[in-house]
């Protein structure tokens, strides 16, 4: 086990990266909001922009909003806004694919109501987050990257918020 751990560290430290680049793109996927034994799963869409330097360190600002709402136990919940700021490290592991890991902070604004009553209305959840992603640069157009990400936020209280998203990015 120790050997594999050291090999992994050596790979991260020595694997090739690419030059600095900025990116801008669109994302879509599903958010998972867990509270009191229920999981709300609204479909979300958003934009993502950021920058990676030539050592693989980068920053990302991601925004998303709800496309559909979800109802569980008579409570309808939709995503008003999800904003996340991340510090990333990405590593090239073949000619065109990257593994990206990041930590950050997210703000999530939800709007819920039970039995069409208007309660509890808008809610705000803020907390630290981590994000992991896989990116693949298109062979036919190296400026286009396809991206799969999983993000998990840890707001205070008994609510957890995560999302899985697919994105198309333009790098320049």
């Amino acid at each position, binding site marked *: 086990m120790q050997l594999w751990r050291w090999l992994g560290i050596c790979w991260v430290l020595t694997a090739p990266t690419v030059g600095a680049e900025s990116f801008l793109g669109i994302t879509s996927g599903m958010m998972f909001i867990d509270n009191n034994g229920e999981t709300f799963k609204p479909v979300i869409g958003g934009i993502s922009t950021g920058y990676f330097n030539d050592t693989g360190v980068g920053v990302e600002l991601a925004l998303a909003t709800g496309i559909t709402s979800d109802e*569980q136990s008579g409570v309808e919940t939709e995503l008003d806004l999800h904003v996340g700021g991340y510090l990333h490290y990405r590593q090239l592991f073949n000619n065109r694919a990257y593994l990206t890991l990041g930590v950050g902070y997210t703000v999530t604004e939800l709007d819920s109501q039970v039995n069409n009553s208007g309660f509890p209305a808008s809610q705000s959840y803020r907390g630290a987050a981590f994000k992991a992603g896989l990116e693949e640069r298109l062979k036919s157009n190296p400026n286009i990257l396809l991206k799969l990400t999983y993000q998990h936020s840890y707001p205070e209280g008994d609510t957890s918020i995560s999302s899985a998203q697919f994105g198309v990015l333009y790098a320049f």
Partner: protein
Amino acid sequence: MPSNSVLGKLSAVAVICFWILVGCEGEQDSERLAEAIDLGRENVVVLEISSDQEKVLFEPGEVWQFTANATREDGTQFDASNMVKWKLTPADAGSISDVGVLTAADVSGEQVASVTVEWAQLHASSDITISDAELIVIAISAASNPLAECLTTPLSAVGQYTDGSERVLTDLTWLVDSPDLARVDDSDLIALTSGTFNLSASRGDVTSESLPIVATDSLAAINLSETSPVTAKVDELLQISATGIFSDSSETPDIGAATNWSNSNTSVLSISDDGELLGIAAGDATVTATCGGLEEMLLVTVIDVTDIRIVDPEDNDMAAGETRQLELYKEFSDGSLGTDDIADDSDVIWDIETGEEIASISEDGEVTLASDISNYEDSFIRIFAEFDDFEDTLTIRLDD
């Protein structure tokens, strides 16, 4: 399109500003969302407060249970006292617990307050008055008087105060002048046998007038829920209830509160004041229920586990590749076989005693034979089970 480095720097600045702006602050709304989910699960549409005996007038320091009644969309109701948020306003009127228990403050004069419940968007409130007027007279009454022996009737009391108000009283000390004839449990009068006695109640220096109560000699027979002889198991509980048959042929399903339970053999069983029997060791005993001068006896045989028995639900034959669930039962001291299959009990140990090269057995007693048993020399396998120091084996023949 802006240059790479410019956009990069802008992104970095934006992320840093975002982190600074959001900082460590943040309103957490988890509880409100959880509350809404609870309400949605129950589908509650109406919330109301109720107070036993519609009591709204309280003394300083008085403790009282309020109830939050929730009504679902389908009309069914339930007690939601432990699911709602209770509030008492103004706060100096006293306190109210998370389950609706009011403790009135030591106010001077008279104070009007409001008890409020909230559950998500639903609200209800009830006005109360706390007054320091002094109690001067206690008037008591019994729901039934005369009362048949061995029956129970609720008692109530109303107090008259110096401000002219009348209030329902609950925290009283009740006194029966003939304890052999009756007793009071939680504001219920229990007539133990026939006769006439006096009942009174007091609080502080104020005592009610005596209320004569007549317990009529009307119990004709006692019927027990079990008939002799009844079998009980060691370490198992058996609830016995007593039914009163009265001279007017009426029946009261449970006269257990007035019934005295006794037992002839305490080494075999024990019986509680409310007729709950516990087997202690194998043997015989007689339980006697006494009320109103009548008694009814019940012969009880307590049995204990003496062995276990493995049972093959089929014919003790198995073919190659076959799987079979075995059963395991307790055998008792009277020779009877238990009815509960304990094969999957976590305390049971299963093993293959003979034939482990072709057979396996799960922790739940499921035997599986290998698909090829042609090289097996014996014509049987033997299963072993152990439970609480008892052991049994079962031989299963192998089909050709």
